[in-house]
Every structure is written in structure tokens, then in C-alpha cells.
């Protein structure tokens, strides 16, 4: 029962593709000719040019994982709070993954899905801004589900199956993701920002833990204190001083 789609709009309209360069690009192209209903999804079995952060290729074996892009119209969200969109999607991913994997599901700032120190998936959000308003948000999500072997990467990847040894029905996985996403999206729409922030921090990797980080100039031991309103990562060093970091300004050292 829990695997059924219980949403009002998220994932109700669904376009299923065998193969596509990128689900984000495909949905973005569709939006030029027709405006899809809010929560519409493009799902692909295989992406030839799947995109990760900063142009990194997202590698995924055919038919093994969840590759989906949704469109939302968060015009209600003040542009100063745009990072909450990241938080909302990330928390939804954590909710969803926790249903399968339980404790150990983490969010690596800003919006990667982890299981302990292993990367399960990621998010790529592309907004269209017109007159200081978020006209549309194209939210691409990739989650490793059934793939067992990964080409060696910097990030230590993992799938649901790597952790539980269970093979999952991708339709069920899609439905659960939609349910989780809509729940958090409605929370965002209701303005329940504090709740989102708290839940995000609950899952935040290295929150309150001493671990190693790296900047352009140094390696240091630090503790994640949280994420500020602009979305910058706040890390305290051993001298007790807290710095706020931009995306490219800090790296996590996994050991």
C-alpha cells in the first residue's frame, strides 16, 4: 500500500522514456511548446548525457536506477529563500531513502543523498527567474537503486541494493519519491521553513561531528554547524572560529 502514489499532483503526469540525453533538458525543451502541469515528471531508463554538478557526468546503468525530472512552479517562494527549494528537495530525498534504508541516510550539503559516507544520488535544480520570481523549477533527481557495480569514481558510490541486497521495483520507488516530494513541497508552500530547516539539519552529513575538510589553502579539522540562509555551509574549526563556505570553497575529505 505504501508503494502507491498518494499525491495530488506530483508524478500524476508522467512521461516515460527508454533513452534520452538528459531528463532535465528534455523537460526543459517540452516546456517551450507546452506548459506541463505542476509535478509532471519525465522518467528515463537511460541517459546518454546525464548531468551532475558542475558538468560532471552522471553514470547510470540502463534500467537500474531512478532518473527523473519534475517541474514545479514555486512562484510563492521569495527569491531570497531560493535555497529552501534545495532544502525541501533534499529532505524529501532523505525521507524517501530512509523508508528503504533506515538510519544512516544523510544529506551532504547542499543536496546530495548519502548513506553514511557513500553517495546514493544527487539533485540538479534549474530555475527560471523572471522579475525576481521563480517562474519554474526543473528538478532532476538521480538515485542509485539496483545497480551493483560502479566504475571507480572519486565519490564512493552506492545503491539501495548495495546496502540491503534487495532488488527494487522502480515504479514503486518512483511512487514513494513522488509522495515524499509532494509532502515537502506543500510544506514549503505553507511557509513551514523552520520545520524544513530542522529536518534538513537532522540529516546533514557531519553535523556536529569533527571531520576533515579541505580548502584551496589548507586542510583542517572542522565541525558542520549548519547551513545559513544563503545556503552557505557553516564550519567551525578547532580554534572555535566558524566560517561560512560557498560551494566551491570547501571540499569534504573522506578517509
Amino acid at each position, binding site marked *: 500500500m505504501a508503494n502507491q502514489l498518494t499525491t495530488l499532483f506530483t508524478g500524476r503526469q508522467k512521461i516515460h522514456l527508454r533513452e534520452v540525453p538528459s531528463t532535465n533538458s528534455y523537460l526543459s525543451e517540452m516546456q517551450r511548446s507546452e506548459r506541463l502541469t505542476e509535478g509532471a515528471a519525465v522518467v528515463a531508463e537511460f541517459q546518454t548525457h546525464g548531468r551532475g554538478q558542475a558538468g560532471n557526468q552522471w553514470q547510470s546503468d540502463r534500467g537500474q536506477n531512478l532518473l527523473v525530472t519534475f517541474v514545479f512552479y514555486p512562484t510563492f517562494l521569495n527569491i*531570497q529563500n531560493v535555497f529552501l527549494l*534545495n532544502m525541501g528537495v533534499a529532505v524529501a530525498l532523505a525521507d524517501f531513502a530512509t523508508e528503504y534504508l533506515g538510519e544512516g541516510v544523510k544529506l551532504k550539503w547542499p543536496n546530495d543523498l548519502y548513506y553514511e559516507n557513500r553517495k546514493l544520488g544527487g539533485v540538479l535544480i*534549474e530555475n527560471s527567474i523572471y522579475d525576481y520570481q521563480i517562474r519554474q523549477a526543473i528538478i532532476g533527481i538521480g538515485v542509485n537503486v539496483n545497480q551493483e557495480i560502479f566504475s571507480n569514481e572519486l565519490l564512493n558510490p552506492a545503491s539501495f541494493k548495495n546496502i540491503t541486497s534487495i532488488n527494487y521495483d522502480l515504479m514503486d520507488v518512483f511512487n514513494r519519491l513522488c509522495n515524499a516530494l509532494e509532502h515537502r513541497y506543500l510544506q514549503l508552500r505553507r511557509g513551514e521553513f523552520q520545520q524544513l530547516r530542522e529536518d534538513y539539519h537532522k540529516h546533514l552529513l557531519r553535523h556536529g561531528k569533527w571531520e576533515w575538510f579541505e580548502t584551496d589553502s589548507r586542510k583542517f579539522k572542522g565541525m558542520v554547524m549548519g547551513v545559513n540562509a*544563503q545556503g552557505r555551509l557553516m564550519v567551525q574549526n578547532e580554534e572555535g572560529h566558524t566560517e561560512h563556505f560557498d560551494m566551491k570553497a570547501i571540499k569534504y575529505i573522506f578517509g
Partner: protein
Amino acid sequence: MKSKKSTTKATAPAAATASTMNLKEIESLIQFVQKSGVSEVSLEQKDFRIIIKTSHGQATAAPVMMAPPVIHAAPAAAAPAPVSAPKASEAPKASDDSKLVTIKSPMIGTFYRSSTPEKPSFVNVGDEIKAGKVLCIIEAMKLFNEIESEVSGRIVKVLVDNASPVEYDQPLFLVDPS
């Protein structure tokens, strides 16, 4: 085209006696010719002859000549661009500039002129754009925000270098909406 030739025996009695013109007189004559709008003046005396030619299209050509240095200067001084934008020194163009629309950054982030480094810029100087056209991406914490133009017109200036950080409300583009 020689629109006018004047042999001015009558108007230059002083010069006539001296047989030459001094530098001051030549300067003022040049200024006079420029103001008059004629294309050429030839002045001849006993053993002295001066021909002053002006390019008839000069009045319109000058601002065109003056504009490019301003455009080149802007990228180097990306941040203070709004200050230099009014171009007070160029009196004839001031009225035109006041019509330009400044497109500002709606957020803090990193400014990108194209979706990926290999792809061409969304817009370039001189491009005609319509409202809704994507101008740039402001990336902030892995959110890629495509900034769409609110005005139609022509891109006059790009005020920020690719891949540089921008602040909230920092001017990004100048657009001539006419």
C-alpha cells in the same frame, strides 16, 4: 565635394597687410569652419593659401567613434559599471543612455553567460532580445538560475565577466529597449 569656395580679400585686411595668418587666427578660422557646417573653405592671399576641409558626416561620425572605448572599458571595471554608465562626458549621448534599462542580479551567486563552457553565450552585445529570453545563469549552491529578460530590446553592454561572483541587485546587462 567642394560646396563652397570663398576668396576673402575683403574680410581679411589685417592678414592682407601681414601677408600671413598667425596661429591664433588659423585656430579660430578652423573653429568657424567647423561650426558653419561647410565642407571646405579655401582662403588665398598674395603668397599665402589655406584650405580647411571638414568631413561633412563628422557630426554623426564622432559619437560612433566615441562609443567603442566606453564598451571596452566596461568589462575591466565590472563592479563600478553603473557609475560609469551615465557617461557624463558625452553630452550628446546622455539622453540616449537614460533610456537604457539595467538588468540586475536577483540573487547572490556566480554569473555564467552560457549553460556550459562549450556552449555559446545566451546573449551578446548587439543581440535583439525579447522579454523572457534567457540572459545568463546565476549559480548558487548548486541551484542553476536562468535569468530571463523582463524587457525587449537590444543588448548594449554586458557588465560582468563570465564566471565571476555577483551580489544581489548588481547590474548585469544594459538593454536599449527602443
